[in-house]
C-alpha cells in the first residue's frame, strides 16, 4: 500500500458515500406530519424567493401545506401530490430540477467539472514529478541532527 494509494482510498471513502447519503438526508426533522413536510420541502414557495414550502412562514405556503395534507389524507401518493403542483405551476415549482432531460445537465456538469479538475491536477503532477533530473547529486553525508533540521524545515510551512 503506497502512500498515494492510501491517500486516494481515504478521499474516495469520503466522497463516494456522500451523495447517496445526502439523498436520504432530510431537512430539520419535522415532528408530526413528516409526510407533509417531506413533500413541502421539495416544492418552492411561490411567493417567497427561494424558500421551500416547508420553511416559508407565508400564508400561501400554509395554504399549500394544507392542500398537501388533505391530498395525502385522501390517499394520494407523494408523487401524485407533487405532480398536482407541477401541472399547475410547471417544473419551476420544484426546488431541485428533475434528473432527466435538459435539467440532467445541471446535475452532471459539476461532477464532470470536478473530474476534469482532478484530471488536470493529475497531468500537472505527472509533468512536475517527471522534471526531477535523472542523475541526482550523489548523496551528501547527512548526519541525524542535520536530517532532523531538514525534516522540520520541510514540514513547518510559511
Amino acid at each position, binding site marked *: 500500500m503506497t502512500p498515494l494509494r492510501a491517500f486516494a482510498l481515504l478521499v474516495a471513502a469520503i466522497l463516494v458515500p456522500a451523495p447517496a447519503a445526502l439523498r436520504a438526508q432530510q431537512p430539520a426533522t419535522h415532528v408530526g406530519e413528516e409526510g407533509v413536510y417531506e413533500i413541502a420541502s421539495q416544492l418552492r414557495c411561490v411567493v417567497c424567493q427561494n424558500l421551500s414550502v416547508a420553511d416559508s412562514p407565508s400564508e*400561501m405556503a400554509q*395554504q*399549500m401545506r394544507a392542500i398537501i395534507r388533505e391530498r395525502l389524507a385522501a390517499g394520494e401518493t407523494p408523487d401524485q401530490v407533487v405532480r398536482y403542483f407541477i401541472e399547475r405551476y410547471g417544473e419551476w415549482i420544484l426546488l431541485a430540477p428533475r434528473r432527466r432531460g435538459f435539467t440532467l445537465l445541471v446535475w452532471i456538469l459539476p461532477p464532470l467539472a470536478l473530474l476534469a479538475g482532478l484530471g488536470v491536477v493529475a497531468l500537472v503532477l505527472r509533468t512536475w514529478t517527471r522534471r526531477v533530473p535523472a542523475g541526482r547529486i550523489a548523496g551528501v553525508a547527512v548526519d541525524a541532527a542535520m536530517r532532523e533540521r531538514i525534516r522540520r524545515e520541510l514540514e513547518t510551512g510559511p
Partner: protein
Amino acid sequence: MSRPWRWLIPLSAVPVLVLLAYGFRLNPRDVPSPLISRPAPGFALTGFDDSTVSLAALRGKVVVLNFWASWCYPACYEEAPVLERGWRTYRDRGAVVVGIDIQDKVEAAQKFIRDFTLSFPNAQDVTGKVSIDYGVYGVPETFFIDRGGRIRAKHVGAVTEDVFRTHVERLLAEPG
C-alpha cells in the same frame, strides 16, 4: 500551449457574458402557465354578497377570472376600474368578469369593492385552494376562459383596456 490556443481563455468568457446579457430580456418573476388550453378548474365559492359564485354555472360565456387582493398596490388598484368598465361593456354580449380575493381580510376586501364600486361577482378564496388550483403565484393574475371552459390566456400584472378588449373580443368571436 501554442500561440493561438491561449486566446481561448478570454474567449471562453464570452458565452457566459452573452447568456447574462440575454437575461435582460427575461422577467424572472414571469412564470408561464401550463394551464393554457386546458380545462379551467371548477370552483364554487360564496360571494361577498352571499350569492354563489361557481364556474360551472358560467359555461357558455366568456369568463375573465381575476385574482386580486386589497393589499396589492398599485397593480390591483390600477386594473379594478378597467375590469369594472369591461364588465359593464361586455356583460350583454356574453362575457362575465369574476373576481377572486386571496390571502386577504374580509373587511379590507369589502372596502376595496366599495371603493371601486365593483358590480361583478366577487368571492373570497379563504383556503387558497382555488388560487393554487389555477397556479396563481402573485396578484394580480387574470385568466381568460372561453365558452367551452378552456383557459386560453393568462395575464400576469394589471390588466389594461387593450389587453381586456383583445382577449375578450377574440373569445367572443368564437362559436360557443
